């Protein structure tokens, strides 16, 4: 669990969560960043589980989501194409008192005589199935994208909605709880009310007492269990292969649906979060410490690579360029969010200054900071994405110079991406044709070492 707290407010200020899955109170006498706050999760529950494995978990999540949504579309089309919807969709309010009557029998352990579920569901069954298909599933589909920075930061009306990213995240979690509760009740009743016959209904589509449905159904469940074990094995033993599979299957969908639109949403000054989770390791190198100790007077941003006009810019040079400010919603891959004001120069202005050569495709941002496993942190963005008006090299946060925790002297803001793509403590920028020769070739430190996806639109 990378951010084991759920909120109804977008600011994620510690102690405002409605539930937390950690015994830890955020300490107030020292810096406690959001990675410190991550908790281990048993691999019996999570895929792959343990601690800070969110990169791999997201790959499995999105791969499964594509299958799940596709499967759901086929199901709904067949449901309405074959009139089977009449079994699932209540057509009279009478279903409510009838369902309550059935519930009273179940709750007090008086199993009612069942109508043969092959031909007709009882009122409670009908309501439960209807809710799973037409309430829980749409809710899961709608609340998932509500956590996408590319989607929510695209629309200027989004900040005016009463909902926010954390409401979406909380509802997404509660929807999962709803599915779990449904599955538990459903499986229990299938077993209790005639397991063999019910399995024939489910698996074979026949209404008889032969054991074939039971055997095939249990075999199917065993296959799912084995596949889950294999998925766990692959997540730990072949993580790069899983990352590349997701890159081949999920990334094109994400690029098609989310990546091309420029973010535009802005918030008001009154919306700025009172607390903004720090994240990442503050640089420990002597070079950065000396720069900070000297008031950043000697800082030079080196911009080089496939550019017509390589430059070295001091902070004064950067401040002398046209300044843009914006108040935007930050989305961390771990789940937390926050609203802050950012001031700096647009990356579009920098690109205009250095003039990338025609073969330059990507800008790589190198940090003074280290990654979790040592080595300098970096990440990359396409030049197209850096041309969006809300892509900034920020030297100001909440009307103050960037502080040490949040990236002094310079950090990136690319508002259609998750936070890990927004490099802090920027040392240099290199324009390249491809990221294949940089680091381990995946596009960033987190992508190289934590198997994050290269696109972070959601």
């Amino acid at each position, binding site marked *: 669990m990378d951010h084991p707290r759920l909120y109804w407010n977008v600011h994620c200020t510690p102690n405002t*969560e*409605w*539930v*937390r*899955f950690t*015994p830890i*109170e955020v300490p107030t006498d020292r810096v406690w960043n959001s990675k410190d706050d991550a908790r281990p999760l048993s691999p019996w529950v999570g895929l792959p589980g343990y601690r800070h494995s969110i990169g791999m978990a997201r790959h499995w999540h999105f791969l499964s989501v594509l299958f799940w949504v596709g499967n759901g579309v086929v199901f709904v089309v067949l449901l309405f194409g074959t009139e*089977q919807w009449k*079994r699932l969709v209540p057509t009279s309010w*009478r279903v409510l008192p*009838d369902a*309550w*009557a*059935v*519930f*009273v*029998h179940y*709750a*007090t352990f*008086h199993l*009612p*005589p069942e*109508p*043969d579920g*092959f*031909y*007709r569901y009882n*009122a409670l069954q009908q309501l439960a199935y209807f809710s799973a298909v037409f309430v829980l599933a749409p809710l899961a589909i709608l609340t998932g994208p509500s956590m996408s920075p590319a989607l929510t930061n695209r629309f200027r009306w989004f900040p005016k909605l009463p909902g926010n990213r954390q409401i979406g995240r909380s509802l997404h979690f509660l929807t999962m709880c709803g599915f779990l509760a449904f599955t538990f009740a459903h499986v229990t009743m299938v077993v209790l009310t005639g397991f063999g016959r019910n399995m024939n209904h489910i698996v*074979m*589509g*026949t*209404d008889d007492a032969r054991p074939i449905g039971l055997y095939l159904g249990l075999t199917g469940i065993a296959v799912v269990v084995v596949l889950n074990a294999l998925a766990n094995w692959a997540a730990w033993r072949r993580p790069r292969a899983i990352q590349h599979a997701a890159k081949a299957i999920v990334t094109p969908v994400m690029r098609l649906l989310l990546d091309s639109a420029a973010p535009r949403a802005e918030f008001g000054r009154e919306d700025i979060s009172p607390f903004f989770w720090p994240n990442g390791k503050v640089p420990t190198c002597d070079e950065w410490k000396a720069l900070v100790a000297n008031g950043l007077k000697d800082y030079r941003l080196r911009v080089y690579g496939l550019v017509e006009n390589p430059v070295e810019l001091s902070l004064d040079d950067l401040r002398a360029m046209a300044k843009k400010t914006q108040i935007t919603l930050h989305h961390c891959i771990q789940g937390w969010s926050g609203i802050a004001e950012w001031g700096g120069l647009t990356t579009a202005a920098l690109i205009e200054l250095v003039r990338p050569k025609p073969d330059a495709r990507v800008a790589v941002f190198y940090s003074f900071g280290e990654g979790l496993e040592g080595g300098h942190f970096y990440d990359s963005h396409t030049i197209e994405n850096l041309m969006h008006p809300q892509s900034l090299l920020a030297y100001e946060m909440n009307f103050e110079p960037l502080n040490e925790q949040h990236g002094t002297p310079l950090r990136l803001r690319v508002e259609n991406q998750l936070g890990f793509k927004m490099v802090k403590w920027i040392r240099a920028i290199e324009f390249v044709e491809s990221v294949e020769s940089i680091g381990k070739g995946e596009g960033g430190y987190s992508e190289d070492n934590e198997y994050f996806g290269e696109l972070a639109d959601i």
Partner: protein
Amino acid sequence: MRKRLVTILLIASPFVVLPVAAAYVQWGAVGLPVLPPAPALTTEATAGPYGFPA
């Protein structure tokens, strides 16, 4: 989930605890409710048999 356990119970109670409690109250007070009669199975009302092998 330690500090906010009360919150979770408050949220869960309308969906889980209260209905079960109400079911017992109804059973204790007026007995089990009458179940809606299952309609007779007619050719038009049935969905099957279908699937394989029939």
